[in-house]
């Protein structure tokens, strides 16, 4: 029995954090999306689904602002006919929805949801390669969409799959490069340690307490903000969310990669998209906004006051930040129009790639300068700064010429269509 306890704890964490906590958040972010969209478009949205007391003979239903809508949606998806068209590749057609949903949920395993609850860290796997593991598993989710597009044996589905594949590969580069300055600053790849460091020394983009008030950190704030912007926008592109949802662009591709899907298989794609959004938000919150930390130096007070229960407070703080970010995702979806495909690729390759590279160099110089100045190597620091400036100018020039090249042959290239020939 004694030997089983660690396994029971791990199982409890997996079930609790993934299935009890995150799956309802996914379900309710669909509801939030619909209500928020309705508010923005001056509609009401789904506000009636509640407990149907009238079928038991009562006078009125209880509606709870439509809070039971996700339940009704789920029921609808399960009860609909699960239609598999005859022209599809059956094996991959069945595999694809699972391949989009599962990687998104697996990446949750390294996200620290809270500090410690009775000495147990609120993270499923406290590994030393956190962000890398997230990128690795998230890069597998591209197969789900690609296989869905290919197995559907349908031109529009295939375009959707190919577009998504190209988009995710392009933005993975921006994502990976933009996170390097962050990891350079922390010098650590363990997400729990990163959050603990932020709790003590100021959130990455809000360094207002602890060691965050030094000149070095104030200077580092600039590259960190740049990183934050690139990372956030790349997450939008990685999760195929609205300004970048070209793979399922209705006006061009019918439904994109999930045109042929129905019933629960379609729902899995939908849930996979929302799960990816939640993981993306969780990663942004963890890396840049202090994860579970309350902030402003209040974490030590929380731990001393609540003792073993501090983990729950931190879990609550984390969820508040997460939900705020999900609402931000939804707000962007319903306010920013969709990009054109060549604009999307240009943004990834011509703007973000170069800016992220320059950003890494700036961070390196800021981090290397103080000890060098202490040793009196002023000339070397000046040389480094000049090097960064020259490199940036060169990058800017290359980006400009690429931009001119791309816009000059735009007349012959059509997004999506050129992959057909």
């Amino acid at each position: 029995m004694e030997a089983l306890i660690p396994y029971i704890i791990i199982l409890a964490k997996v079930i609790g954090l993934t299935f009890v906590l995150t799956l309802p958040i996914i379900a309710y972010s669909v509801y939030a999306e619909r209500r928020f969209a309705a508010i923005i478009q001056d509609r009401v949205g789904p506000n009636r689904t509640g407990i149907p007391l009238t079928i038991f003979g009562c006078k009125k239903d209880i509606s709870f602002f439509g809070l039971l809508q996700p339940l009704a949606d789920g029921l609808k998806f399960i009860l609909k006919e699960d239609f598999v068209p005859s022209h599809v590749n059956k094996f991959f057609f069945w595999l694809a929805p699972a391949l989009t949903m599962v990687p998104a949920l697996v990446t949750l395993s390294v996200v620290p949801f809270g500090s410690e609850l009775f000495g147990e860290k609120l993270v499923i796997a406290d590994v030393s390669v956190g962000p890398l593991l997230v990128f690795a598993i998230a890069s597998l989710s591209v197969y789900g969409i690609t296989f869905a597009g290919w197995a559907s044996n349908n031109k529009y589905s295939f375009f959707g799959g190919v577009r998504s594949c190209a988009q995710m590969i392009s933005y993975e580069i921006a994502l990976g490069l933009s996170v390097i300055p962050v990891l350079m600053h922390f010098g650590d790849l363990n997400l729990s340690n990163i959050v603990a460091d932020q709790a003590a020394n100021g959130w990455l983009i809000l360094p207002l307490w602890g060691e965050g008030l030094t000149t070095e950190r104030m200077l580092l704030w600039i590259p960190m903000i740049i990183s934050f912007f690139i990372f956030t926008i790349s997450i939008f592109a990685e999760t195929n969310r609205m300004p970048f949802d070209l793979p399922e662009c209705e006006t061009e591709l019918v439904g994109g990669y999930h045109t042929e899907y129905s019933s629960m298989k379609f729902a899995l794609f939908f849930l996979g998209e929302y799960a990816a959004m939640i993981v993306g938000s969780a990663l942004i919150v963890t890396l840049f906004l202090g994860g579970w930390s309350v902030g402003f130096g209040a974490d030590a007070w929380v731990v001393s006051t609540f003792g073993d229960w501090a983990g729950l407070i931190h879990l609550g703080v984390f969820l508040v930040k997460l939900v705020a970010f999900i609402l931000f995702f939804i707000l962007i979806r319903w306010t920013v129009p969709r990009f054109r495909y060549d604009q999307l690729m240009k943004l990834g390759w011509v703007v973000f790639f170069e800016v992220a590279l320059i950003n890494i160099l700036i961070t390196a110089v800021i981090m290397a300068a103080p000890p060098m100045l202490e040793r009196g190597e002023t000339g070397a620091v000046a040389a480094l700064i000049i090097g960064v400036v020259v490199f940036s100018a060169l990058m800017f020039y290359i980006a400009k010429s690429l931009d001119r090249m791309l816009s000059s042959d735009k007349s012959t290239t059509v997004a999506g269509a050129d992959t057909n020939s």
Partner: protein
Amino acid sequence: MPSPLFYIFAILMLAGGVCVVSLKNPVSSAMGMILSFVGIAALLIGLNAYFVGTLQVLVYAGAIMVLFIFIIMLLDLKKEENKTTKYSTIAAGVFVPLLFVLIMVPVLNSVDKDFTKLDLKAAEASLPDTISKYDEEAGTKDSKIRTSLKAGTLPDVNLIGQSLFTEYNFPLQVVGVLLLVSTVGCVALSKKLHGGSAPATDTRMAKTLAKSEDIPKVLPRD
């Protein structure tokens, strides 16, 4: 005695490998290869090599195989499915893996047992002073490698970084330049030459395709 997870992932890896050579459909073969890579990554993680295992998924399963699948799907290799295998190919397929098994023999003979926390503490004690030299100069704490060895965890990322950027710094730079050269070479080779090498029909085709994109508008999802 390896853990049961070792057997699960070893079987997964081998099944993926068998799929690669035995399935007729090229996309299925590529899928088998991905499965095999994921299995290898899991085995590496089981050996406490988190960094290498993660890179295996990130680079091979996540990036290189995506390109493979991309190209297989675009080429639509229908005739591959009716291809029969020659006996000479099978013979080569048996012979080459046998050579690899021979290589494996000395490797397997030199394998020690699992390391324990005590081993890590001993490793910390025998750590050369140079590793924490920079921190001592700054007059602060121990290096990351030292602290995590003291805590009884293997700092694989830091150790790899340490040896890559100190001992093997020059080879690393050379490899970087080599990759850059190959990238530039690729771009130079595949670049269309200016001055009419592209046939005019291409442009016309692209223009017709552009017109055919007038797909009727459908209502948004929600």
